[in-house]
């Protein structure tokens, strides 16, 4: 393998990993806030792409379609949390996981009823011929995906460190009772976390759609995002991003060195390895049960 091929693979891996990272973030945020692992996150990715498709079909330009999609998705996340999650928030973790899983299946089934499994395409204004950058040829879509992830991480850092709501979410993540005693409205924190996660999922859907098209299975890569979140340390936002990027790059190199069959195995082998050796992930905090 030449260094040019190696770099080209790294670039491709980073773009795939960026999508994993965004979805991993969307998994980590409500988990941090409410300790609910949202197995419907993949369907929120899919839903975001379909919302974009509908808005585009009504003639909304891309620049207006993207924020409109994110707002609609956030509102949907808010409603989802208020109607289905908050009433059972005190239930055992297993019940919550099954509930989110069921919500995901319902969303996917509803999408299928209307659109079936037909493939749709969502054009993006930035899609175009590859750009020559030094010895590399770079897909503008990849640059947008990687760039959006970088900007997103910066915005999330600012949000959690500078804004009142962000600080409230961090406080609730550390100690819900303490946060409540300090006057933080936990319900608002939960709702905001789910709204943010749904919007992030929709963003991932909008970034993916021009590259791979839209169908009800689009959100299936949530499984890979879950692996990324575990590698990074569940609940750690930086860890989720790092885990996603690492997984994307590893997967791409695994495909190049070991072929398509092993490429699918690598993420899950890595997951098992982390769960055995460092279950808290790279940046997670180990909890000791006493």
């Amino acid at each position, binding site marked *: 393998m030449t260094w040019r091929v190696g770099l080209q693979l790294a670039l491709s891996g980073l773009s795939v990993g960026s999508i994993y990272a965004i979805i991993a973030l969307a998994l980590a945020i409500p988990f941090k806030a409410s300790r609910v692992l949202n197995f419907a996150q993949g369907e929120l990715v899919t839903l975001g792409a379909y919302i974009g498709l509908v808005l585009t079909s009504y003639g909304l330009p891309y620049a207006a379609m993207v924020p409109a999609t994110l707002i609609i998705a956030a509102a949907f996340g808010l409603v989802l949390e208020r109607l289905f999650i908050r009433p059972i928030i005190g239930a055992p973790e297993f019940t919550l996981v099954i509930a989110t899983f069921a919500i995901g299946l319902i969303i996917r089934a509803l999408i299928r009823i209307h659109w079936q499994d037909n493939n749709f395409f969502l054009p993006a204004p930035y899609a175009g011929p590859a750009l020559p950058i030094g010895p590399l040829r770079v897909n503008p879509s990849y640059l947008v995906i990687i760039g959006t992830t970088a900007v997103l991480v910066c915005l999330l850092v600012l949000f959690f460190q500078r804004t009142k709501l962000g600080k409230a979410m961090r406080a609730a993540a550390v100690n819900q009772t303490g946060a409540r005693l300090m006057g933080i409205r936990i319900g608002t924190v939960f709702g905001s976390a789910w709204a943010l996660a749904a919007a992030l999922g929709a963003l991932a859907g909008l970034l993916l759609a021009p590259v791979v098209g839209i169908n009800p299975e689009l959100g299936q890569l949530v499984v890979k995002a879950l692996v990324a979140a575990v590698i990074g340390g569940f609940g750690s936002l930086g860890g989720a991003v790092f885990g996603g990027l690492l997984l994307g790059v590893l997967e791409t190199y695994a*495909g190049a060195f070991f072929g398509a069959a092993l490429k699918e195995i690598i993420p899950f082998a890595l997951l098992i390895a982390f769960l055995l050796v460092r279950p808290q992930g790279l940046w997670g905090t180990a909890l000791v049960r006493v």
Partner: protein
Amino acid sequence: MSAGNWLFSAFAICLALAMPPFAAHAAQQGLTADTITIGAFGPITGPAAYIGLAGRDGAALAIKEVNDAGGINGRKLNMIFEDDGHSPAKALAAVKKLVDDDKVFALFNVAGSNGTIGTIDYVKENGLVMFVSFASAPAVTWPFAKNLFRGGTTEVPRYGELYAEYIVDGLKAQKIAILSGREEYPKNEGDALTKQLQKWYGIAPVKRAEFNIGDKDFTPQLLELQQADPQVIAFFGNPAEAAIALRQAKELGINQRFFVGTTMVDQGILTAAGPAAEGISGFALIPLLPNSSDPAMKAWHAKWTAAYPGLPPNRPNIFDVLSYADMYVLATAMRDAGKDLTTGSLIDALEHLHDYRIGPIASPRSFSRVHHIGNLRLQPMQVKNGEWVQVPWESKRPSDILERYH
């Protein structure tokens, strides 16, 4: 014999004479006095749904037309459809349900090869007619089975013959790389091309790489193939995968010619791959693609669009056309079998079909008592200026495929 006995005997004879059609209905599942129930299956969910959704809709349109025109010898067609999820196990479960629970008269298969291979043994054992519209898996027609018929697509070894001849003699390529999916159909196409290149030209592919169904990134495989410096890259998989691979190939500066499998010679890949599809070639399964400006296809397209409004621009696809045409093949054979329709009479009627087609939108289908491969003809096509156009090339080598049936 007393007069009473004579009367009784005469009544009994009359009753017996009147009975055969009724007895045949009772013995033949899926038939009533006014209905013929057909069991259909194919993938309508998952990455191969473009096959099954189109297969279901094309067949349903044909059935509606047949029924509106009065049905078949006084009976209306009724189709029960099951999703096979593109899985051999699910396809077998679907077929068992259709045969054992729904008691269908015959099976209409709009599955891919992956689903189809799971059903072959059961259907052979069961004996009902299974008309396979799309699947190119050799096991459908070889070894020969009396109750299995192949419609629009041909056997994958025939693909291998045509692909090898076109790539080597038509595209004048000696260094050929193959990128194929790991599931049944694309793997079979890759294997058939490899085998035929070796057999007819003594050429081995310079590189072969594989991918998984539903993959979204082909960079590793494309870079691997690029390093082998092929003249032509043959891609076998689904259109969605091909579109991504073609775009990524252009991004990576891979300017070699791409040859694609039959499922990709359709409008969908042009929509999905855009300018990256320019120059690719392949064989069409039907004489006119759904977006053709030919009046016959335009009329059919208008009819289809009226029946299924609101579907994406890549529908109808070639599978809508194939299943529509093949349902007419099956319906015509049922009509030819007469009022006394049985599995045996249907097989007999199908074996007597020669060069039958519903119109210019379909290739002619012929069956015989020694082979059930309806169609051996494919049309070479190439993308020029964003459209599929016919390539003036004809196969000169005689096919070996039908020889084994003699």
